[in-house]
Each structure stands twice: as structure tokens, then as C-alpha cells.
């Protein structure tokens, strides 16, 4: 069964001048252990789609299923709980907090949980992405590739079912991008998680188990 599924999802934005349909009857799914890459020109609606999959936004019509549960009508707090327990995020700009160490950044999503072994898991994850010797470094002491690897470790701290990556290699050079993608692929298999990534990057497509192309809000 798909771990995440969009069914007939429509997203409309009302501006003063016009109504924009960012997603037009989109169907989408992703399975565990699978890397799905969503590509498309800018403005095609792929970011909107990632927001739907990432439970950051709600569809105008249509339904969203997470692990077979219909979560379409969940309110913001319920969606927050699902994100907290099921999802991991990796962003193009890494989005690490500058005042926290690598280890603290990894712990961040579960920092408010009274979970005693999160710190161990954080250092373990950093070890696994090859940053075992950088635990107490702050982001400005790390290279772009290292920062993105910290972000990947952060996305896995809550043992998610789905990893969402928004242009994960967008700010990295080719070689660094490759190591980051190797990392994601390895973790995808080790943790048996679904990876959904949006990108322009052709390099990323090579790592995809499946490619979904979206143009003008329509999945091709």
C-alpha cells in the first residue's frame, strides 16, 4: 500500500484579479523504499504538490491518504502531529538554525519530546552521514554539503515514513550533490522510507525509481 496518496487533488488560489488553479485533478502516490522524483518547469505546481504531500497545505478539493488514513480534513494541529511523527523534510537552502550545533539541529524536531535517547540517535545519524566528528560545529563552520547532510540527519530523527526533499541538490555542486544523493538513496533502503523529491536537476532523475512530470498543474 502507498504510504502517501493524493486523489483527484485540486488547489485553487484566489487573487484579486483571477483564480489560479495550481493543481488540476492530480493523482499521486509513493511507496516505501521508493524514490519518486517530481519534475517540471517553474510555476508548474510541483512546489504546491510537495506542500500537499508534506501536509503543509490543504487541497481545495480532493483527498489525501497517509498510510491508508484519510487525513484530508485534519486541522493544522493534527497535521503538525502527523508531520512530527511521519515526515522528514530536506530543503534546498538546508534551513539549519545558525545558533544550534549540528547535533542540536538534528535533535530539533524532537527537542520538545521528553525522549531520552534522541541525543544518541542524533549523534548516530550524524555518524551515518559521515559527520561523526562535527557534532558540536555550528552551521557556519560546515560546508554546504555538510550542512545538507546535517539536514538529512535532522529529517530522519523522528524515524519518518516519508522523506520530502525540495531541490536537495539545488545549492550544491555536482560532486557534493552526488554524495548527498548517494546518502539519501542508502538511507532510503536502510530505513525503508518513501522519498519524494522535486527538482529541475537531471542528476537527481538518475537516482529516481520513478519520475512524475507535472506541467501547468497537470500530471503528465
Amino acid at each position, binding site marked *: 500500500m502507498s504510504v502517501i496518496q493524493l486523489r483527484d487533488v485540486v488547489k485553487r488560489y484566489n487573487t484579486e484579479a483571477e483564480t489560479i488553479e495550481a493543481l488540476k485533478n492530480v493523482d499521486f502516490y509513493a511507496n516505501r523504499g521508493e524514490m519518486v522524483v517530481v519534475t517540471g518547469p517553474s510555476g508548474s505546481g510541483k512546489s504546491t504538490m510537495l506542500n500537499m504531500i508534506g501536509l503543509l497545505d490543504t487541497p481545495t478539493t480532493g483527498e489525501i491518504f497517509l498510510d491508508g488514513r484519510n487525513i484530508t480534513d485534519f486541522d493544522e*494541529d493534527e497535521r*503538525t502531529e502527523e*508531520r512530527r511523527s511521519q515526515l522528514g523534510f530536506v530543503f534546498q537552502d538546508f534551513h539549519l*538554525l*545558525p*545558533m544550534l550545533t549540528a547535533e542540536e539541529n538534528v535533535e530539533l*524536531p524532537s*527537542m*520538545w519530546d521528553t525522549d531520552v535517547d534522541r541525543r544518541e540517535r542524533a549523534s548516530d545519524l550524524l555518524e551515518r552521514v559521515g559527520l561523526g566528528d562535527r557534532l558540536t560545529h555550528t552551521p557556519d563552520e560546515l560546508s554546504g554539503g555538510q550542512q545538507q547532510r546535517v539536514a538529512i540527519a535532522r529529517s530522519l530523527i523522528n524515524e519518518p515514513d516519508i522523506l520530502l526533499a525540495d531541490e536537495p541538490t539545488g545549492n550544491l555542486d555536482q560532486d557534493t550533490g552526488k554524495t548527498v544523493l548517494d546518502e539519501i538513496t542508502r538511507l532510503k533502503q536502510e530505513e525503508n522510507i518513501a522519498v519524494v523529491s522535486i527538482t529541475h536537476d537531471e542528476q537527481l532523475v538518475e537516482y529516481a525509481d520513478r519520475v512524475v512530470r507535472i506541467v501547468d498543474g497537470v500530471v503528465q
Partner: protein
Amino acid sequence: MGRTSVLRRFPSVLMAWRNLGRNRTRTALAVLGIVVGVIAIASLGMAGVALEQQATSSLGGLTDQATISPGEDIDTDGITDAQAETIRDLLPGVTVIPQKTNFTELSARNGEEANVQVTGLTNPAPLYDLSVGTEPTRLETGALISESTAQTLGLEIGDPIEYEGQLFRIRGFIASQSGFGSDGGGELVLPLSALNQQDDYNSVTIIAEDGDAATEAATTIEEHFNEDDDEVLSVTTYASVQENISSFTDTLELALLGIGSISLFVASVAILNVMLMSTIERRGEIGVLRAVGVRRGEILRMILTEAAFLGVVGGLVGAAGSLVVGVVMFNVLAGDPALALAWSSSRYLLYGFIFALVASILSGIYPAWKAANESPVDALRGS
């Protein structure tokens, strides 16, 4: 790492602490605003207390006294022995000092003369301060005389003084009195027996624990002796003067606190501005926190903790600064810097601190609420 380990158990505190550390100048300026506000509130409050204490000490020890004198409707020449005894019985625990007074002219061997008021009583200690000599609690043979009169007449301790054909040795000089009740004229204090040719007392001074007790005693006396509209005994208290001064200084204190509150209000507007700016700057970051599953309530707590930190630090530094101001002020106004530590004035340090904390948290509520309730998508897009 020790501090970090402790902080990790309080993630809001850890995050708040690190966030405040990011822009130290801004944090320091926000704290400075609070410090000034607290100093304004606390030191103006303490100034009110210092002024009240100064005013009270100018009144001297008179507020706990009442003077009973013969009223219009008394049948005798003065207050009788029986009446004095009744007063004593009516007021257990209150010092009752019946006095006989007269006037006389003293002349000295150096040719100088002086008019003095003669007071006969048994227990001069509570009423007179001596500049020279030891104060007898029972005056039986000696005399006390105003220092200024003694100087005029060239008298020294041990010299004899004559009144109505009797000789009394000078046992002490009365220091010039401060406050009310001193007419500046010379006084001669003699044993009660010296004025034996007068049957009745001219007045009775009572000394109670404090102003309230003195007022109460006065009421007791009036109720007992004065029936209907008759005024057998007339009672004068100074407590009402004290009350007037208290109510004036209370008003003054409120006015001063009002001025202080304005500066704390300005400081909390500054905190509101700082918190609002810093949350707007961190919009994207807060969006990331929300995206990775940090709850709205946790964001709210984190930002409120930042505001509370500003309040706590500003409040503590401000209270310390106010204490210094208070010590200087009490030294100047009341002559005793240690009075600044008494609860009546040091409580303003606590009030200032609490005001700072409350004002900071109140100022943090809106920015915190705004940050916590922003949609993560908008926040991320805005970054």
C-alpha cells in the same frame, strides 16, 4: 557542556537563550530599556518612602503622645490626683506622666536673668533628651535645665538652683528639642514635690506604643470624662498630623510610581518592537520549525521565554541598580543608608522586578502568537 545539558531538558529555554545570543546588541538594548524602567519604578517608589520617613522623623517622637489638659467644663483648678489615677487605670500599658507647671525668673551670680517654665514631674526620661548628664527615671531631688538657659546663666552640672526657697542640684542639661512642642524658651524640670503648693496637675502627657495607640487612648479618655457636650478634659494628639503627612506621602508615592510606570511602559513597547522584529526576521526559520513538526504551543513558549528572559535579566539588573540608588537616597534624605534594605522600601525592588517580568511577557504575547499562528507554507515561502 554542563549548562547545555541542563538547558536541553528545557528546549524552550535553550532556544530562547541561543536566539537572544544571536543579536547581542539588540538584546542588550532591550534589556537596557527594562533596566531603566525598573530603576525608575523602584527608585521613585523608594524615594516616596524616604520622604515619608524624613517627614516622620521631623515630627520627632510626638506622634505617639497625647497631651491631656483641663477642659472648659472642669470643676477644679486642674487635673486632680483622682483623675490622674483614673487615667492610669484606663490606660494599662501606656506611660502616664502628670505634670505641674509654673513660671519663674532665675537669676545667676553673674547677674544674668532668665525666665523659664517650671515643670514638676516624677519621670522625665520619656519626655526629655539630655545633652549632658544621665537621665533619671525618677526625679526626686535634682533638677534638669535647658542647655541654652544654663549657658546664659553660666551654670554647670552640680550647681545648685533655687526655686521657692528650695535648692536643687543640676543633674543634666536638656538638649534643644526638634519638632513640634518646643517653644524655644528655657525649661526647668524639678521633682513633683517642688510644686507642692499647687494641688492639681496642669497637664498629663501620655505616651503610647505608636500613633494609632495614642489616638485610641485619647478616645478612651474623652469618652470616659466628657459626657454629652461637656469638656472636662481636653485631649490633644499629634497622630492626626502624622496621618495627614502619611496620606500626602502616599499620594506622592503613587504619583512617583505613575511616572516610573510610564518608563516601564516605554520599555515594554521597546520589547514588543524587538520581539516583533526578531520574529519577522526569523519567519522562515519558524516556518522550518513548524514544517518539521514543532507545535504551535512550543513556538509560543519559545518566544515567550525569550521575552521573559529579557524581563528577568533587565529586572535583576534594574533591581540591583535601584538598590544602589536607594542606598544613596536614604543616606541623603533619611541619613541612614541601611533603611533602604527595610521591607517598606526594598519591596519596591521586588515590585520593579515583577513589573518588568509581567511587562516583558505581555509584550511577548503578540509576537509569539503571530509567529506561532503563521501558516508554515507562507513562512517558508517568505524566507
